[in-house]
């Protein structure tokens, strides 16, 4: 019964996807709907995500501004399994992406770099893997970036030093390698933000050792 209703909702979701482009006003609902279709949600946290609605502003765990634009996605601690998709990059007005303490797998989509209003990216305590996308350096409004306790690999993109608003950063407990940037906001992050990345080699030496040294 549950699985059939899931199928139906998925089907209607896909149907909705096929229909929506012309309704430009609901591209965000469409994106969230596509996101939902990737997820397993045993606690029915996403039950209210009804694709037939004109916009997602009455969905629970979604917050809109006064112009019905999605500014928050609060799904921390929700026992969700699944992957993050490029569609999240279409939530142009998103300020808070709170997906911490779930079982998200796979890579961080580079499209998240399109969230130019993002203030907080909390993906910590999931099962994310792959590299930290360079594109995240486009998140000029970002203040909080917590990717700790995942399975991220590769080096820390140097481009992130341009995120001048970054206040809190936590990359600890991953499998990152190379050296730690020292410029920009990185001069203020404590060592704890990087601990337990056993292939991470300390601060970089500009010009002498490549940043992906040891990767």
């Amino acid at each position, binding site marked *: 019964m549950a699985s059939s209703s899931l199928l139906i909702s998925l089907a*209607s979701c896909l*149907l909705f996807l096929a229909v929506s482009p012309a*309704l430009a006003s609901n591209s965000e609902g469409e994106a969230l709907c596509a996101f939902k279709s990737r997820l397993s949600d045993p606690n029915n946290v996403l039950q209210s995500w009804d694709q037939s609605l004109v916009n997602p502003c009455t969905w629970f765990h979604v917050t809109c501004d006064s112009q019905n634009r999605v500014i928050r996605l609060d799904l921390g601690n929700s026992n969700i399994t699944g992957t993050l998709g490029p569609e999240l990059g279409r939530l142009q007005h998103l300020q808070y992406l709170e997906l911490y303490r779930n079982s998200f797998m796979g890579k961080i989509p580079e499209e998240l770099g399109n969230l130019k209003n993002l203030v*907080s990216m909390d993906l910590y305590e999931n099962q994310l893997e792959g590299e930290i996308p360079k594109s995240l350096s486009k998140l000029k409004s970002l203040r909080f970036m917590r990717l700790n306790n995942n399975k991220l690999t590769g080096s820390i993109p140097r481009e992130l030093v341009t995120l001048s608003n970054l206040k809190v950063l936590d990359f600890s407990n991953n499998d990152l390698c190379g050296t730690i940037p020292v410029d920009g906001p990185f001069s203020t992050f404590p060592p704890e933000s990087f*601990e337990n990345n*056993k292939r991470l080699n300390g*601060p970089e030496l500009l010009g002498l*050792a490549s940043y992906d040294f040891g990767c």
Partner: protein
Amino acid sequence: MTSCKEYCNCKSHSISLSLSAAFFLQFHVMMIIMIPCFPLSAASNPQGDTLLAWKATLHLQLGDPLPDWHPSDLSPCRWSGISCDPAGRVTSLSLQWADLHGPLPSNLSALGPSLTSLVLSGANLTGPIPSSLTSQLPLLQHLDLSSNALSGPIPPDLFYSNSNALRLQSLLLHSNALSGPIPSSIGNLTSLRGLLLYDNQLSGPLPPSLGLLSSLQVLRAGGNPNLHGPIPAEIGNCTALVMLGLAETSVTGPLPSQLGLLPNLQTLALYTALLTGPIPPELGRCASLQNLYLYENKLSGPIPPQLCLGPLASSLHTLLLWQNDLVGMLPPELGRCTALSIVDFSMNALTGPIPASFANLTSLRQLQLSVNQLSGPISPDILSACTNLTDLQLDNNNFSGTVPPDIAHLLNLRTLYLWANRFTGPIPAEIGHCTNLEAIDLSQNAFTGMIPNSLFRLPRLAKLLLLDNDLSGEIPPDVGSCSSLIRFRASGNRIAGTLPKEIGMLRNLSFLDLASNHLSGIIPPEIGSCHNLTFVDLHYNSLTGSLPQDIFQGLNSIQYLDLSNNLLSGPIPSQLGLLTSLTKLVLNGNRFSGKVPVEIGSCTRLQLLDLGGNMLVGKIPPSIGNIPGLEIMLNLSSNDLSGEIPPEFAGLSRLGVLDLSHNRLTGDLHPLSVLQNLVALNISFNNFSGAVPSTPFFSKLPLADLQGNPALCVTGCASSEQSGARMSRRAARIATAVLLSATVALLGAAMFVLINRRHKAAIKMRSGCTDEEKDGDMSPPWEVTLYQKKPEIVISEVAQCLTIANVIGQGWSGTVYRTHVPANGITIAVKKFRSYDEASAEAFACEIGALARVRHRNIVRLLGWAANGRTRLLFYDYLPNGTLGSLLHGNGGGATVVEWEVRLSIAVGVADGLAYLHHDCVPAILH
């Protein structure tokens, strides 16, 4: 509150493609006629052997699906799936929905003289189609390999015949994983009546040779996303075609006008592709056309009136043109297609009115014209004539005028979407006659008058959406009789009167939104009986009275509750704590009094709590600080709250916005200093005291967010701010403590001075190191190892220099300090490891072992190390400016872009990195 529109046009046409199914069913029946077979006298049967040889290639893990294929049988004619002719020769092999798990038979030549039908579908077969399959079977008429997992290309040789013309009448290869192009040789199958290739991974263009298939009745190749190129004009030669399906492919270009040459065509399914250009008027000549599916393309131009001028007029049943770029008016000629049942032109750029001739479409069940630029009124004639309508969706257009009462004729109507138009006048009470209505959305129009009582007597109504109109009057008590109602939204109107208590009878109601109206009176306690409520928004009304004590008892599903900007008074019921699903609670702008209930801490899922602008008194309950999910906003502003910020507020580490302004709160801001997620904070106009925490967040906070706290020290605060407003016993106690500790410190310092008198003078003069030992970890005895005779390092002098003022870098595993060695007048760098845990100890040992041996010019020299029971220190060269410059920039003379201190920490970093590289220390040396 701005509008929340409801519903888009969700397409739910159940497109029946049963035509071809019926065709082939008939075919199957013909082939499955069981012919009694008589065993041949021959001891061994070559046809049976061939079949057994194939069976031997199958991977039959889950039992034998062919248990009666006995090798000992003289003839295979009684085997399951086998049919024979009277002479005992196999004419048909048909195995469907069996778990065969293996390849197709590679050699069936023994069956060649007799086999006319080969059906191996839904049998979990894998691998390629053998190219010799058909040449071995010259009599084959029916080949069905559908619904397997066959891969590889469709072999072109399949359609070549070495002797006679191939007799194949039906070829079913759909629902596999076949790739590559459709072979041009398919044109050789001149007897072919059915060709089903859909749901594969076929690519390339459609071969024009398809036009040679003059007997072809069904061609379905949809669901091959990589099929591209134009639809060949030659398709017009397939005059027997009944069904043409190329949906969900990448076919491009215009629809060929030659489609009009297909007099038998009943279904044209070309949706979800990349078609451009106009809809050819010639389609009107397709005398049999019933179903025209062209949605989700880029078709342009107008809807051709010719569609309904020819013979098609009496046959066309379904016309789906939604989501294209069609323009122009709806042709009045469409009214001649009197068989039309489903019409969907949504999401185009159509203009003008609905032609009056639509009143002739008496068979019409679904009329969907959403998201166009259509205008004009809804004609009463259409409503009284099209009585079979089940779905009328005209939303997102420019329709105007009143909705005629003739809508009462639509007794079959299930959905009525008129939102986002310019309708005026009252909502006709006659809608109440449409007793099959399940969803009504009239939002975003200019409807006036009351919500008719009759709407609430619709027995199946689940969604009633009336947002942003100009509705007035009261909500009738009849609302309670609409027990099927799930979603009721009428915000943004001028609805007045009270909330009828009958609303409590809506046991299925999940979503109640009556915000921004003129509702008055109390919130009826009966609303607590709506156990399925998840969303309640009543903000911006004039509701009065207190919240009934028991109202929250039955509302444990509620996730969103917004009662803000009303005139509600009395206490906030302590039963609020029962709402464990609540994520957003907004009670702002009322007259709530009394204390904030402690029980609010039980709402553990709360993400947003706004109690601002009330008359709440007493202390802030510490339990608020324990709500783990409180991360969006906490607003307690503009109340009469007193006391201090509970220390538990330090636990709100995820909170983004905190507003405590305009209360009578006291004490210091210390609990807020650790809230690292704060983006906005307002504590203005309270009685806070002490110093503003010296964090970067507070230093950047606008003064307006701090003002109105006379005893609060914002800048230049000395550490002894205990004075100010409070001349209390506590302050006196603190002063005593300060005095006492100062005395102890003085005594200690005096002793220290006595002991270290000689070194002290030198250090003070040359290095600026202070004598207070801030770190208890720096006490002797030290174990010291020095690799160089010079500089001479005296550990007690070094220890005194490891102060905050001398930090030149934070490393991975410790802190690096600049330290002056008075004996030689030189400066060294000292790295102090962060902790004395095991990993750090290993790193330390590793670093010592590695760096002591490294003799590379560009690498920082390790001078030695020291350790006591608690701390470990490493001594490095502190590189003079020029040396470091060349180290960093290669050729010396580099500009000093990087701050000096940063460079040193960088230099130390690379030394560690190289050591790791060369000596393979595990774990790595981590700064």
